[in-house]
């Protein structure tokens, strides 16, 4: 069964993640899953530098390390239970009936991939537990998750506001049309004012592509606005978003390889860094 998966952790974004996930779950008529991943550092704090090994050293060491891990894991597990219970209370109050809780050990990306075939939409905070300076830092694992998941991801800021309008960053590529198709088939933006925005020179070709996309979205019964803006992608999109007071930005992510990104940087990464409003990334 497909679910809206909300990633809960100890970060400030957790309540907002719950709220946005509840909102998405309601509009998509899809049950929710609250997920907490126990991604623990396992390194013992006190190394023993004596450098000697005696009879039974290995057995003793295994016992000690296992005991240490057990204590930590138990605490983390309990902590996670509390967070999940808190989250469940919140979404139940928001009127979501069907919620399940899941806890998994291990790396966040790996855990999400393991749940990928049960995921319809993934909801995550833009800022993670470890990025305390929330104005500048994007969650440390966000990029890896976006690059490896093949499901839409809703990235949310630390505060919830009910989404009322949405815009789609459109570049006329095959991937962008796929994104449009996906939106057309999803009830989540139904009836909401929708903006299709392209960045680049104002040409007839581009208007044509926009109109084609508009036609595909006719089924949503939304009021659709088309626009083309000049300039660099990231500032232009944000400027448009602010100007029109748009709540959700939908975009494709990481169209280029890591090597290109290393050399010229990535629009997606910059978009994530400067986002103040929720983002939906499509891969």
């Amino acid at each position: 069964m497909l679910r809206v998966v909300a990633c809960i952790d100890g970060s400030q974004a957790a309540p907002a993640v719950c709220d946005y996930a509840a909102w998405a779950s309601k509009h998509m008529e899809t049950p929710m899953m609250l997920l907490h991943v126990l991604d623990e550092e396992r390194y013992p704090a006190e190394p023993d530098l004596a450098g000697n090994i005696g009879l039974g050293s290995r057995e003793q060491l295994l016992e000690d390390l296992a005991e240490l891990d057990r204590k930590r894991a138990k605490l983390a597990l309990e902590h996670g239970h509390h967070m999940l219970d808190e989250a469940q209370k919140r979404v139940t109050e928001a009127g979501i009936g069907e919620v399940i809780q899941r806890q998994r050990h291990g790396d966040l990306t790996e855990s999400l991939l393991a749940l990928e075939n049960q995921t319809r939409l993934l909801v995550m905070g833009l800022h993670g537990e470890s990025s305390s300076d929330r104005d500048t830092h994007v969650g440390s694992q966000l990029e890896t998750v976006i690059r490896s998941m093949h499901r839409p991801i809703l990235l949310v800021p630390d505060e919830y506001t009910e989404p009322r309008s949405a815009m789609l960053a459109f570049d006329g590529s095959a991937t962008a049309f796929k994104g449009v198709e996906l939106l057309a088939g999803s009830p989540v933006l139904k009836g909401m004012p929708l903006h299709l925005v392209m960045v680049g020179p104002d040409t007839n070709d581009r208007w044509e592509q926009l109109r084609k996309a508009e036609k595909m979205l006719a089924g949503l019964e939304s009021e659709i606005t088309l626009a083309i803006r000049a300039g660099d992608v990231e500032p232009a999109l944000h400027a448009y978003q602010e100007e029109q007071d748009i709540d959700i930005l939908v975009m494709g992510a990481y169209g280029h390889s890591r090597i290109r990104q290393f050399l010229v940087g990535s629009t997606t990464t910059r978009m994530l860094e400067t986002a103040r409003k929720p983002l939906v990334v499509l891969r």
Partner: protein
Amino acid sequence: MVNSLKANWLSNIRGDVLAGIVVALALIPEAIAFSIIAGVDPKVGLYASFCIAVIIAFVGGRPGMISAATAAMAVLMVTLVKEHGLQYLLAATLLTGVLQVIAGYLKLGSLMRFVSRSVVTGFVNALAILIFMAQLPELTNVTWHVYAMTAAGLGIIYLFPLVPVVGKVLPSPLVCIVVLTAVAVVTGLDIRTVGDMGDLPDTLPVFLWPDVPLNLETLMIILPYSIPLAIVGLLESMMTATIVDDLTDTTSDRNRECKGQGIANIGSGLIGGMAGCAMIGQSIINVKSGGRTRLSTLTAGVFLLIMVLLLDNVLVQIPMAALVAVMIMVSIGTFSWDSIRNLRKHPLSTNIVMLVTVVVVVATHNLAFGVLAGVLLAALFFANKVGHYMLVTSELDETTDTRTYRVVGQVFFSSSEKFMESFDFKEAVDNVVIDLSRAHFWDITAVGALDKAVIKFRREGSEVEVIGLNEASATIVDRFGVHDKPDAVDQLMGH
């Protein structure tokens, strides 16, 4: 890319660097000692340890595992060095590396699943005994001073960590070496030192191609050494990887480790080092000291070389007794103490497998033979045990004068004789029914036995009917796999 770099190298910097230094300090005496076992200059082992540790840090499949020149490999080279010299050893090291890389590409790492736990324990114990036995020449025909030094060394190693504060920050094997060297220098005792055993490195290692003729004859000389070296190297590396996996509760990439060991040995052979592999004792020390990532292995290798180059004047003065004490510690630490305690708890067959592995290794000085013997024996015991899971019941229907035999369980080479004995060929009946629908025929021996039984009944004048042969013989097909078809389990177990 950045994330994996972080996780593999920089997630535990302080622990890794400290552990790497502790390991390097313990590697120096071992590398010297293992060179002496192999009969080459200490610099051969030291260069090898440096090179293998550094290369494996990058290409290995098990972060946090320490690889260097080892005892298990050294004992295999003794006769090659004695009869043909160092250059042939370097050539054999190269070939060992090539064989291990091939093994990695053939994914032979997964063959480890045939090596049972008792064989691993036997291997580890045998290795400990080999390391200890290699110290005996240093302890025979010597003055009482050497015994006193060795005993004092062991005392320092095990008691020094109990000293408050300093005990936990200074590696006790290092303290042992420093103290004993100081005593030997101050008192001017006439005992053997590292300097008496051969050359130490005085420069950075340089690239050199082994000086051997490249012909078939050379190959025939080195191949009989390279094959066991490659096998033993991979076995010890895989077992050590399992131990580190258990200790750190993480997983390793075995086939990558095979290839990595090969590349490391090729590198070692090209700079004048001997073949090596993963080290059980050092890897335990590394984990105990807080090392977890590739950085600890790299630190160990680099620090080892720096120490050796800076301190070569001091190293030659280290008395052999101090090295012997360190090696006895390694041997004690490698030995699996639990295996002795478990002798009473474990079934006899398991104990026999473990003990046979140990005895064969100690007798042949070749860990590969020991593991082979252990694996064969474990397989035989398993076949024997599973062979008991076969039962034939029968009933006589007097109205039709029919005897029905119902076979349940596993029929294969080990149980086929019992299968034959379960039929009463002397009983005179008109009809015989053999119901195989709950039996599994695993091999041709089982089918042969059934054929024989049918013919025998026919000769006695009975009509024979065999039921369920198709289901029973499905298991004969090689690659009969349950794993990829979930309903096959029911099919296999249910009929």
